């Protein structure tokens, strides 16, 4: 199902993940969120930007346990816990945040 952002169509898979990593832009992220009826605030962007950096460095999307630990280290203990992350991304922090970050679904995620 293609995603329409300001008249440009981007290819996505059956779950709405971008097919081409290089198609990502902040506008695409906002459109992906909008298709889930979600809106991205500053706290969402912190996580999304973190995921993009992690992918750039390690070429994988981290599992949720790894994400939680790493966010805690980077952004503080009050953000490095599942409650905070699930409030931001109720469909599952790794799964949903990776989608908006334009990354593949985390390895081992069903």
């Amino acid at each position, binding site marked *: 199902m293609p995603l329409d952002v300001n008249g440009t169509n981007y290819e996505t898979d059956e779950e709405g993940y971008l097919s081409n990593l290089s198609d990502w832009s902040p506008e695409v992220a906002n459109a992906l969120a909008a298709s889930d009826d979600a809106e991205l605030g500053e706290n969402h962007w912190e996580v999304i930007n973190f995921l993009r950096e992690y992918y750039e460095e*390690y*070429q*994988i999307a*981290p*599992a949720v346990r*790894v994400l939680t630990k790493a966010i805690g280290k980077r952004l503080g203990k009050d953000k490095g816990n599942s409650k905070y992350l699930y409030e931001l991304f109720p469909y599952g922090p790794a799964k949903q945040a990776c989608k908006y970050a334009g990354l593949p679904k985390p*390895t*081992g995620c069903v």
Partner: protein
Amino acid sequence: MSDTKTFVYINRKAPYGSIYALESLEVVLIGAAFEQDVKLVFMDDGVFQLTNNQDPESIGMKNFSKTYAALGDYDVNQIYIDQQSLEQRGLSLDDLQALVYEDEDDDWAEKSSIHLVNREELSEIIESADVLLNF
């Protein structure tokens, strides 16, 4: 946890040209979620999987060697390199990427995950396995 098992993954093949190395890495990462005792062995051409400065983009492959550096985040920190295989290929530990983890029990000190082993030590590692997976 009483039902923890020791998983030993043996990596024997060169990183590209077959799917074994990448598949092994994915299985390890998925398995890491189950908090088992995980040991990785690199031997034969498998030692090439950890070499520095891989650049497979010209053969249309993703450079997944960067992903090994994430293993520490996944609490996979027992990585054994067969000394004999390394030497036979004219390599030394300096040719391999440094893989580290942070030791939770030691104030998060950064420690190396890599251990060079001889054939006798390798046999003990294989002997310690409850589950042995060969890639």
